[in-house]
């Protein structure tokens, strides 16, 4: 299972879903219930690995709902399994396409000569910018370093390799740079029911600065990252999202640990670009209800 996660190109969420698919394929079981159990076990195992959990959990839940939609109709188990596999593959395909869709939508918002501020490493944003370059748009990108894992540097390298004019800035320089930029484009690890997003730590500060200086904040994300949690404030985020499972297991004092993600409330977000369409934060809950209910 964990081998799949080594793929760099694939986000954790997609990898997780691929894993689940292989679970269905490889682990032969005779009843639907056993299959369910297996899948649950797989999901739990993935949660306990060292990857950020947000996308994994939401993706897995949506996957489960999607494939089990058809479960009750069929009679024999083999048929059922086949159908589930089918649906799982459809789901995965949709996921892989999602990124492309989102990037295309964002294209029209990147105009010539604009300056974009982005935060940490997001594959969707990267893809959007690559698309923009292909469409011969001229733009400048400011990318934050995003400590502690410095994933911004990786993003910077990738952007430069793609031909984007990118500048690396400190996290603390966000307020300084904000007046020069035109739009803020960020990815998301999870989208909450309230319409807010869970993203790499530092996103919240970025959102506050953008609101203060009246810059629009666009979030690029796939729809499988929609989750049903509704945090009321930063403290209300589930612990599993904020800290790696290693940290949680080790029993250290969590208040002294550095959280991985933070929650940006919907009031700081202008629009969300998803494969379901361009949504306002208040429409997210509408889409969620459609997905989950």
């Amino acid at each position, binding site marked *: 299972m964990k081998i799949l996660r080594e793929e760099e190109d694939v986000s954790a969420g997609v990898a997780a879903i691929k894993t689940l698919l292989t679970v269905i394929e490889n682990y032969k079981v005779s009843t639907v219930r056993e299959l369910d159990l297996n899948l649950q076990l797989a999901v739990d195992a993935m949660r306990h690995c060292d990857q950020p959990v947000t996308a994994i959990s939401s993706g897995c839940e949506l996957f489960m709902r999607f494939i089990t939609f058809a479960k009750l109709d069929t009679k024999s188990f083999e048929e059922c399994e086949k159908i589930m596999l089918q649906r799982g593959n459809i789901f995965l395909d949709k996921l892989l396409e999602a990124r492309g869709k989102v990037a295309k939508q964002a294209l029209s918002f990147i105009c010539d000569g604009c300056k974009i501020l982005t935060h940490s490493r997001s594959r969707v944003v990267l893809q959007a910018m690559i698309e923009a370059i292909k469409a011969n748009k001229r733009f400048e990108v400011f990318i934050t370093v995003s400590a502690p894992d410095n994933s911004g540097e990786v993003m910077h390298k990738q952007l430069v390799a793609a031909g984007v004019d990118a500048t690396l800035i400190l996290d603390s320089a966000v307020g300084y740079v904000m007046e020069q930029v035109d739009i803020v484009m960020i990815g998301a690890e999870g989208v909450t029911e*309230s319409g807010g997003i869970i993203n790499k730590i530092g996103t919240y500060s970025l959102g506050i600065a953008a609101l203060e200086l009246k810059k629009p904040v666009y979030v690029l994300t796939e729809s499988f990252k929609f989750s049903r949690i*509704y945090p*009321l404030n930063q*403290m209300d985020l589930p612990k599993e999202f904020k800290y790696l499972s290693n940290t949680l297991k080790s029993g250290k004092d969590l208040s002294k640990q550095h959280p991985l993600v933070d929650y940006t409330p919907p009031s700081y977000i202008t629009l969300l670009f998803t494969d379901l369409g361009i949504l306002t*934060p*208040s429409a997210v*809950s509408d889409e*969620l209800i459609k997905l989950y*209910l």
Partner: protein
Amino acid sequence: MKYLILISFIAFQGTEKMVDAENYLVQPEKPFTATQRRRIRRNRLRFAKTDCVDILCTINKIQNKTKNNPEQGHIAVIENNKQEYKVEDALRSVVIKDFDESILQKMSSNEIPPKSRDEIKAARQAKKAAKLKVNNKTTENPQLTKEIENLNENNINSKPKVESTDEVDKSVVINPNAVDISTSREQIKADRAAKKSAKQLKKKGAADGESNVQSSVKKELKEDDSVKQNEDMTVKDVVETLKNIVSVAKEVNEITTKVSALDLGGKKQEETGKSKAELRAERRAKQEAQRAAKQAAEQKVVKPKLEAPTVNVDVPKKEEKVIKSKTLEKSKTKLQLAQRFNWFQHLYTEFDKNPLKKIPINSNLHPAIVKLGVQLSSRVVKGSNARCIALLDALNKMVRDYVLPAKTEFSRGLESHLASSLEFLWTTREPCASQINAVKFFRHHLAQLPNNVDEFDAKKTLQEEIDRYIREQIEMAGEAISIAVRNKISNGDTILTYGCSSLIEQILCEAWEAGLQFRTLVVGSRVSPDAAEMLRRLCARGLPCTYVDFTAVNYVMKTVSKVVLGAGALLANGAVVSAAGTAGVALAARARNRPVLVACHTHKFIDSLYTDAFMHNQIGDPDDLLEKSDDNSPLKDWRSNLNLTPLNLTYDVTPPCLITAVVTELAILPCTSAPVVLRFKLSEYGV
């Protein structure tokens, strides 16, 4: 004399079949002429302040019962003077005993025989005679005379049929509501006892004559109320009772003078149409009937006149005060009222604590509905959940006891019955969102019944649907919401809440009992006792709680971690309608960045949309704003001051930007997703 006899005959007829609701006061064949109407009106105005017609009115009431509901059969045309109740009681207890016997025995079946020309003439004569006799009568006089006329006619006709129709009448009478049967049995017994005593008194002679007359009249009225009289009348008795009527009239005058001291004010003479008078009389008659039935067995004739007024003074004293304020209010001209509530004219309905007078004359409202109306109006039942459940319960009973008239489709018949019941209920208190939705749901299922459905099946279906609604939408939803909010409460939290909400109480108590350690702050206002009630309930379950007045909410907000509020309704834009003061609390929370959670069942979501608390609101009792313990309060005499109006609004609207999340049984949602829920519910339940 003859006519008097006739009158008495008529007076003491059983009346169930007598009256068609419309023609209740009038001979069916001859409506009043314009002059007669004018005279009546004039008389009413002139005799505004006297009570003495009660007796006669009660006679009327008794005589002119409607078919279905004997309890409400005492629709009388009595003016809405609450003292009349007292008088009636007095009179009843005092007077009728003697009367009863004779009258009741004379009473034939409850049939209304067809009226002949002679009868009409006789009735008219009787009317004139009665008018002459009763000088200081109140406005009910003409009605009484009409009653007497009716009675006359009935008497004349019923006489020959006395024997034959008794059995029929008995059987017919017993048919309606099962509810009524039990009470009427008691009434019958009471009446019989009264009759006996009346007979005995009568034998004692003229010394007690007048009082007896009155008591007997009252008794007779009681008897009539129970609708079970099937007495035989003899001519002699009729004569005697006619005499009694005359003496009763005199008595009434005397009592009126006594009672006038208690009589507090003008009735709304300018406003009284027949219907209003009838309504009031109806209500009073009903109350009187019930009271008389109780007192019938116990009271003896000794010093009836003197005792009765005093007794009655004590009992309805509370009512008096209410009546006092009401009559005072009513006595103002309409112009004055308009001036008082300039901005709220569209909301202002007289704050009326007694809803029973609003019952139309021949209503066949189910007693559960009437009871609910009184409860709503007197704020015994309050809170959106409680009101919704009470309404559904009353509807349940109404469906259960509904008797389908012949050749009527079940759903149509019940729909019209429902409409009239709801009309009454909404006049007692404006419906809240949960009630509106419950009615919508009920109507939806009623409309969905197939055309040829069997009555029993239909009733069963409806009752099951109601039970399911209560179970699913209210109880189970409440549990789901409680669990959802519990997940948001962490140990060490301080939760702030405003006012009293049954759902919030459930949430907090269940969270506490699940082991979470948190403190509660209850914010209340001086005007309404709800918050104190909430505090009481929470403390009883062992939660650590604190009470603060609304003025301190900003001060304590820094110690609060979360705010949890209840809702009366959720509008389509996500705004929350709740008890007045909620918006202020939400604003204070926002100012300190505290998350505000609103716990709301989905059955309270409504389609309408308004942004402020002026468009739709309810005016509460203005006297609540007064400081009750302060005798020198400058607001004490606000009624005499035209420039001063205490305004007590019940609800306010909290805009969606102040609210962090709405907790429903479906999910925790942002406020702006209210239309999504409405859409979802529509697709799920069709309503």
